[in-house]
């Protein structure tokens, strides 16, 4: 079925057995209310922020393993990898929704934002979003507008930076081996 009637609809995609609907960030709350009340997606499983900085910039050479093997008639199954298609903006926030009916229909509601652009909060639609959105702010730096308590949740309160961003280093220590100078 098509999801075009969702408020703020931008595009939709079906891949690997899952459906994704992309909406405009400023219409997110209306889309959420529509999906919860009209379509029955009362259960918010997860909110996943993703950082696409550097996506597709490293072309990798080499064989791509497909389950059916090489196809000489299909480009990029025999030599260089096709660079993955570019994403519209730097960050995506994916809301994984579930309807509690047999068959467990799932839907991924996605919005795309740039660095500094806020995303409205869906806490009033699904109260469970409270901590997920705080985590998105803490670890990824996506500011949530309208959140009642937007504070760091996982890192220390005075931590600087947002660790899960791609420009944040992995940190840690170099490992020394015995016998090394």
């Amino acid at each position: 079925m098509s999801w075009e009637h969702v408020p703020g609809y931008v595009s939709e995609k079906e891949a690997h057995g899952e459906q994704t609907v992309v909406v405009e960030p400023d219409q997110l709350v209306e889309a959420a209310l529509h999906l919860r009340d009209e379509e029955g997606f009362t259960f918010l499983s997860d909110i996943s922020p993703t950082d696409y900085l550097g996506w597709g910039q490293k072309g990798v050479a080499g064989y791509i393993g497909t389950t059916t093997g090489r196809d000489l008639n299909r480009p990029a199954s025999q030599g260089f990898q096709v660079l993955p298609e570019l994403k519209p903006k730097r960050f995506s926030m994916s809301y994984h929704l579930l309807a509690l009916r047999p068959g467990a229909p799932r839907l991924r509601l996605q919005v795309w934002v740039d660095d500094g652009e806020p995303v409205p909060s869906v806490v009033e639609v699904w109260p469970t979003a409270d901590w997920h959105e705080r985590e998105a702010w803490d670890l990824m730096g996506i500011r949530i507008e309208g959140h009642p308590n937007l504070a760091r949740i996982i890192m220390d309160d005075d931590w600087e930076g947002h660790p899960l961003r791609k420009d944040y280093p992995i940190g840690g220590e170099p490992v020394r081996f015995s016998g090394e100078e």
Partner: protein
Amino acid sequence: MAVNRPLREHGLKSERVLWRGKGPSSFENEVDQLEQALGLTTLEKAVAWAQTKSMWPDTFGLACCAIEMMAIVSSRYDIARFGMEAFRASPRQADLLIVSGRVAHKMAAPLRQIYDQMLEPKWVIAMGACASSGGMFNNYTTLQGVDKIVAVDVYVPGCPPRPEALMEGIIRLHERVLAGIPPAYEVRGVAS
């Protein structure tokens, strides 16, 4: 009484059950030399013996290693035979801090606070790879080894170490104490 036997005879008996001709291991030899060098008096040996036989751990289970630490209290591995099943929640009443699990930087401050609240003499066992060195998590948030903030006596490797491995670590700690080796903070000369 037990205090009059040299430490070598207290040692790791399980090895001798399986390997009859085995002599003392290098650890036992070192401990033996230290014991003779330090030359404890009978009173000090008695005190060390008492400290060893009821060294109460503090409940500092953080992550997966905590589950295996709970397993040593269970009936199969039974740490009560060493007098240690009384895991005290209050650090004021505990002698031994078994740091079991990965220590995040956020948790490092409470860990040091708990360690400071323990009364001397106190010992620390770093249980597992994460407490010994950061384990497989070499990143921005995991303390790369708990010996950066507390003085550790025994490191027990494993991910998680078997309960028997942890018990061997505890028994080796007991042997160090019986030999008269002071706790790690005195050995390393750091604040306790």
